[in-house]
């Protein structure tokens, strides 16, 4: 009897089972914020569609390297600075769903009177690091110049697919699941929470960074790409069998990369 034949018969639980259960108020709030971030993103996207170039400038963050008409004189630093609000919105929308279990861990392991502050410290650290990472990725992509094409997207996605299969990816994903003892009160509570957030977010950035680059390099339908990637990141993070899911995701990425490579040529 082959291993695969036996394994195919094994039942699995729905991944969403991870998220069922009583949530702390702070986690409910975070999930609401995540939904609001997506709604806001959709509204901004819709408003910029068909709008003049100046309005589109609000969305240029997802078009790295693409010159904004009339903005050639703007320095890279200024461009990053002006796009920070949108980057933050994107980080919140994409990463909040996956971090909810970790936020719940922080909330339930904290005294009630300190719960909001502790979850706040955790989320502030988490989002700030993601924001810094996304800004850095943008800075890296700007020198490439011009609109991202099918070739660039194809290469970025194929690289992300290969990365899924590396030990580094496994290490990073495991780091997303590490916990840290949280001191209940005082400055130790703040430092321990920040430490836990750093462990968590550094793992997340290292785990999803290459996929984020691919998203930034997407030539078409970026909101759709962004949504698909957010779902993939969350699913991968909560997967019961992470190795199997990484292999599936790598296959999916590679298939899409091949499609765009064909379109490019």
């Amino acid at each position, binding site marked *: 009897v082959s291993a695969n034949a036996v394994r195919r*018969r094994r039942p699995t639980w729905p991944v969403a089972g991870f998220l069922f259960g009583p949530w702390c108020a702070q986690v409910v709030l975070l999930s609401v914020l995540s939904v609001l971030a997506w709604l806001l993103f959709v509204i901004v996207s819709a408003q910029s569609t068909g709008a003049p170039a100046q309005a589109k400038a609000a969305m240029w963050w997802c078009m790295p390297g693409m010159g904004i008409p009339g903005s050639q004189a703007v320095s890279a630093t200024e461009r990053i600075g002006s796009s920070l609000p949108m980057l933050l919105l994107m980080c919140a929308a994409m990463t909040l769903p996956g971090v909810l279990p970790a936020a719940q861990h922080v909330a339930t392991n904290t005294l009630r009177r300190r719960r909001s502050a502790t979850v706040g410290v955790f989320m502030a650290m988490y989002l700030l690091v993601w924001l810094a990472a996304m800004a850095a990725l943008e800075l890296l992509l700007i020198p490439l110049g011009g609109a991202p094409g099918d070739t660039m997207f194809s290469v970025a996605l194929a690289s992300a697919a290969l990365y899924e299969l590396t030990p580094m990816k496994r290490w990073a994903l495991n780091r997303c699941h*590490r916990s840290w003892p949280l001191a209940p009160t005082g400055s130790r509570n703040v430092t321990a929470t920040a430490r836990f957030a750093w462990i968590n977010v550094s793992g997340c950035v290292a785990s999803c960074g290459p996929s984020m680059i691919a998203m930034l390099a997407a030539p078409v339908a970026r909101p759709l790409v962004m949504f698909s990637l957010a779902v993939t990141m969350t699913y991968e993070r909560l997967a019961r069998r992470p190795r199997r899911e990484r292999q599936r995701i790598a296959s999916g990425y590679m298939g899409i990369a091949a499609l765009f490579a064909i379109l490019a040529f």
Partner: protein
Amino acid sequence: MNGAVGVLIRRDIWSLPPDDPIVSAYAGAVKRMRERPEVAPTSWSYQAAMHGTHTKPNKSLWNECQHGTWFFVPWHRMFLYYFERIVRAAVIEGGGPENWALPYWNYGAGGESAKLPLAFREPKLASGEENPLYVAERAEGMNSGKGSIPARAGSPAEALARPAFIGKAQFGGDRTEPAQFSESGGELEETPHNVVHGLVGGKGGLMADILRAAQDPIFWLHHANIDRIWSAWTATPTHSDPGESSWRGQSFSFFDEQGQSASLRCEQVLQTVPDLGYTYDTEPSPPPPPSAPPPPRTASLVMSRPERELIGATEESVELTGEPVTVSVPIDAAAAEPFGPAVHAYLNVEEIEGEGNPGTGYAVYVDLQPNRAGEEQPTRHAGNLSFFGIERARQPAGDQTPHALQSSYEITTVARELDAQNQWAGHSLRVTFEPLGLAASDPADVESVGHEDQPVRLGRISVFYDA
């Protein structure tokens, strides 16, 4: 369903002479299974690897054991059931009894029964042949027969007294997905299961290592005893197994005596006689009902608060190296009031980390009176702490995510006593960890409980309220 005629009876190994046909047939079957090709699912090494193995790459159904999860007892019952069928077939092949059933090791009975059964101790048989039941990689005091499982480690009383199946500090463990090593084991899994694993294996022994434990022939008798305790717990009228479909409908796969894949669902193994065709010669006596804790101080004034709530935790981690350690857990005054009548108090030992199982367990006490040994104050015994599987928590062997190791103990009775004396909210709770090694008349006859070379760090000790 068991492949044999009639209901099989699993017997206490200590009620059988070392040369009893049941024991000698087991030894012969172990030898026969070891001679089979390693790739055969009915071979000794393959069966052991199904529980856990360091060997890579994984073969079919290797590393499938369930620990730290509410699937712990049903998975091991299924595993033993199919293993017993494989062994019985090997016994019959060798001309042994057709109604052979796996014996169990009832170390909880104390006295001589708490020592390793005689048939497992000697490297050679009377005939001069190698004894298939002997394993050198055990705690020295076990194989010498000079050490025994102490009552605090081997007694199933605290597990049997748990009123519910589901929950970290309850009998069977908390809800998790199927996992080789998760973080929500129940009282039975902790004591006696985990503690006995560590004490029999000792430092670096097979039984202390989750990925090698099933290579030791005593493993199967230890688990037969765990299975027997589950049967006894279920037999208590007020106890019931989980009714949730996510537990009852969960199935696991094994190999039968033909080497063919076979599956069972949890709901198919709840009754040993009608479902699986075996029973035990004796079952542990149900424990006396626990004494009722003092009533809540302000019972008539407060509402129950059913959700899980942290009320106190240590600021710093604690390192265990084999010495007794006492720590104070500050109980937050605001969080601990009110202590409603429906609320239970739990002690959690969290973020347990170490390179490997040191083989030493710890008895955990709360509010222990100074200058008195824990054994003299049994009402202060919260439970035991052991480190079976510690090396796998951060680095899981299979396709699983890592997690922290933790243990939970219900301390409601002590908490209510302290609350009645106004020594609870706003005060500190003393928590003592006493090393738990093999019992012996002369401590020099057994391994030292010290493990300075393999320290274990407890990241946080906390107290929670829960329903």
